[in-house]
C-alpha cells in the first residue's frame, strides 16, 4: 500500500472531486458513480456491449464468449458489428456504438502487410484515445511451462511512439520513419501504470527503455516515469534497458511485476512475457482510455490465427474468455467475473480439453462446453 503522503492525498481528492482519471479494467469507480457494496436497484439491468468479431479466428472465439455469457445469464447483451482488416476505416456506426456503450469486446483484425491500408487496430485506439494497453501474463495452474512464478502486467503506451505511421521516402531507396514521444502521453501512461499498481497491490513498476541510444526520446519517457514515481513512495520503481529486459524475461521472469513501456518495446515485451507464461492463446488484456475500454486477446501475436485453425475450428477461446471476465469486472459485475474465471481455470487445470497451442487437440466448441459445464 502506498504511504499517504500529502501530495498523494491531494491527488486522490482531485479525483474524487470529479476530474476524470484513467480507469483500471479491474473495476474501479466509473466517473460520478460510487462503488457500493450493496447493489442499487436497477444495477442488474442488462448492459449493452459492442462486439466486433473480426477476422480469422475472431468470429469463432467471440462466438464462444457469447455462448458462455448466455449460459451464465450474465447481464450483458452484445451489439454485433462487422469490421474486417481490409476496410480502409472503421465504420462510423461502430465508433458511435462504442462511444455510446463505452465498452467493447473485439476479436483480432488482420492488418495487411506492406499495403496501403493503415492498421484498423491503431485507428480504433486513436479515435477513442485508448492510450493504455494492458496484458496480464501469469502461469495457469495445470499448464506446464518452462518458467514458474510468472505474474507480469505489461502496460504499454498505445497511441504514439514508433507506431505513429509517419513515414516518407526521402529519395528513392532511403526511407524515414518518425518516432514521436511526447511528455503528455508518457506522463499519462506512467500515471496509469502507477495507479494500477497501487490499486491492485503490486509492489514494483519497471520502466523499459533504450535511453542509452535514443537519449532524447526515451529519455523523455524515463523523466516522466521518474516524476510520477515520486508521488507513489510505497511502490518500488526501477528501469531496465529493453535488450537486457528480454534476456532477463527468458531467464528470470519472477523479478518483474508491472512493466510500463513505450509502444514498440511494449509489443515485444508483452508477446515475450505471454509466450513464457503459456502463450498468447491464454493471456487476457485490453485497451483502456479515459472513457472507453476495448477488451481483446492480450498479446497481439496470432490473434487472427491461420486458415488451418479456422477450418478445423481449433482456436483457443481462453484468452478472450478471461478478457471478458476482465470486462465484467469493469462493468462492475464481480461475481459473474469470478464465476467465469474459476470455470476457465478449472478446465485448464483438469487438462482434458485443451486446444492445440496448449498441447491438446480439442476444438473450440469442446472447450466452451467444458467451461459451461464447470460453471457454478
Amino acid at each position, binding site marked *: 500500500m502506498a504511504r499517504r503522503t500529502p501530495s498523494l492525498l491531494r491527488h486522490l481528492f482531485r479525483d474524487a472531486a470529479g476530474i476524470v482519471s484513467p480507469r483500471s479494467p479491474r473495476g474501479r469507480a466509473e466517473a460520478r458513480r460510487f462503488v457500493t457494496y450493496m447493489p442499487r436497484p436497477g444495477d442488474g439491468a442488462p448492459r449493452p456491449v459492442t462486439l466486433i468479431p473480426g477476422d480469422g479466428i475472431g468470429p469463432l472465439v467471440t462466438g464462444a464468449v457469447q455462448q458462455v455469457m448466455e449460459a451464465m445469464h450474465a447481464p450483458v447483451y452484445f451489439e454485433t458489428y462487422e469490421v474486417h482488416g481490409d476496410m480502409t476505416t472503421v465504420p462510423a456506426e461502430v465508433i458511435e456504438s462504442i462511444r455510446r456503450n463505452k465498452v467493447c469486446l473485439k476479436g483480432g483484425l488482420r*492488418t*495487411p*502487410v*506492406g*499495403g*496501403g491500408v493503415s*492498421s484498423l487496430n*491503431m485507428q480504433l485506439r486513436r479515435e477513442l484515445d485508448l492510450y493504455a494497453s494492458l496484458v496480464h501474463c501469469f502461469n495457469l495452474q495445470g499448464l506446464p511451462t*518452462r*518458467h514458474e512464478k510468472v505474474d507480469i502486467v505489461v502496460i504499454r503506451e498505445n497511441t504514439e511512439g*514508433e*507506431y505513429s*505511421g509517419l*513515414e*516518407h521516402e526521402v529519395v*528513392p*531507396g*532511403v*526511407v*524515414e*520513419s*518518425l*518516432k*514521436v*514521444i*511526447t*511528455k*503528455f502521453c508518457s506522463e499519462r501512461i506512467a500515471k496509469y501504470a502507477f495507479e494500477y499498481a497501487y490499486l491492485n497491490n503490486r509492489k514494483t513498476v519497471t520502466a523499459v527503455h*533504450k535511453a542509452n*541510444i*535514443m*537519449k*532524447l*526520446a526515451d*529519455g*523523455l519517457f524515463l523523466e516522466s516515469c521518474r516524476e510520477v514515481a515520486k508521488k507513489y513512495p510505497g511502490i518500488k520503481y526501477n528501469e531496465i534497458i*529493453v*535488450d*537486457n529486459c*528480454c*534476456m*532477463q*524475461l*527468458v*531467464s528470470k521472469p519472477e523479478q518483474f511485476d508491472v512493466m510500463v513501456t513505450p509502444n*514498440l*518495446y511494449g*509489443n*515485444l515485451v*508483452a*508477446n*515475450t512475457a*505471454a*509466450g*513464457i507464461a503459456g502463450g*498468447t492463446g491464454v493471456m487476457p488484456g485490453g485497451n483502456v482510455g479515459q472513457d472507453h475500454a476495448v477488451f481483446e486477446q492480450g*498479446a*497481439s*501475436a*496470432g490473434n487472427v490465427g491461420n486458415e488451418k485453425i479456422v477450418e478445423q475450428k481449433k482456436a483457443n477461446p481462453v484468452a478472450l474468455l478471461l478478457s471478458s471476465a476482465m470486462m465484467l469486472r469493469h462493468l462492475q459485475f464481480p461475481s459473474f467475473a469470478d464465476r467465469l474465471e474459476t470455470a476457465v481455470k478449472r478446465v485448464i487445470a483438469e487438462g482434458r480439453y485443451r486446444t492445440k497451442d496448449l498441447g491438446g487437440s480439442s476444438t473450440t466448441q469442446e472447450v466452451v462446453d467444458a467451461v459451461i459445464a464447470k460453471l457454478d
Partner: protein
Amino acid sequence: MALGRLLQRASINQISSRIFPAFERSFSAAASPSEPIRATLFPGDGIGPEIAESVKHVFNAAQVPIEWEEHFVGDKVDPRTESFLTWESLESVRRNGVGLKGPMATPIGKGHRSLNLTLRKELGLYANVRPCYSLPGYKTRYDDVNLVTIRENTEGEYSGLEHQVVRGVVESLKIITRQASLRVAEYAFHYAKANGRQRVSAIHKANIMRKTDGLFLKCCREVAEKYPEITYEEVIIDNCCMMLVKNPSLFDVLVMPNLYGDIISDLCAGLIGGLGLTPSCNIGEGGIALAEAVHGSAPDIAGKNLSNPTALLLSSVMMLRHLKLTDKADQIHNAILNTISEGKYRTVDLGGNSSTTDFTKAVCDHL
C-alpha cells in the same frame, strides 16, 4: 522497367563484389599454411587480458597459423580517430582483415566517441552475426536452440538523429536505406549458404511501419530470389518473440534491422545461458571480420583467474571459420563443447569451481 531491373541487379552485384573480395585472399592464405595469417587482437579491459591469454594458449596448442598483433586501448584521445583507439590500431585491423576484440569498458567523459561507435564507423561494420546454440551439458530451460541472428548494424533506429520539436515533444528518426538492407541481406544469405543453413527468416513490423520495414523486406526478397535453394520467410516481430520463447527450434537464420536485431539477439543469448557464452562477429566492408565477446569487462573478478573464456573462444572459432580454416575451427569448437559437456572443468559462472587456466588446459587436452 527492364532497364530498372538491370540497374538494380548491377547495383547488387556491385555491392557483392565490394563486400567479398577478401574471401579470395583468405582462400589463398589457407592454402599455404606455412605463412601465418596476421590478426589483430584487442585484449580489452578487466577480464579481457586473461581470456585473451586463454585464446592464444588454445590456438598455440591447436597449431593454428595465426600471428597476433596486440593493440591496447590508449589512455588519451587520439585526435585522428576522436577516441581512445589509436589510428594505428584501426589501420592494423584494416590491413589484416580480421580481428578479435575482448570486452572494453566504456570510458566516461566528453570529447570522444564511444569505442564501439569508433570501430563501427571507421571499419564500416555493417552486420553483426551471433550464432546461438544450446551448449550440450550446460542445462538451461531451452535445449534445442540452434539459430543465428544477423543484425544490420549501421542505420535503422540507432541513427542517433533526434530533436526536440517543441517543449515536451521529441522526434527520433528511423532510417532504412536500400543499400544497407541489400548489404545485410546479401551477407545473411551468403552466410546461410556457406554454413549449410536451410532457412532465412526476415523479421519485421511492416504491417505498421509499411515503408521502412517494407523497403527492408523488398531488399530481402530480391536477394532471396538469387538463392533458390534456401527457404525464405518473413515473420512479424511479435510473432517471432512469442515463437522464440515457446519453440526456438522453429528458427534457423534470422535477418533483421538494427533495433529488432538488438533485442532479438539478446533474447536468444538469454535462451542459451547469457552473454557470457555467446560468440559474436561483426562483418565490415571489404570482408573485414571483427569477432568480439559481448559480455562486460567484469572488473570485480579481473585478475583473479576466475573468468569464463568461452565467449571469446567461440568468437575466435567464428573468426577462423571466416578465414576458411574450417578444420581447425571445428577442432577447437568440438574441444570447447566436449569440455563443457563433460562438466569436470567449469568456471564459477557455470556453477563449477575451476579457474580460467584449468578450463583452458582442459580445452587444450581435448584437442
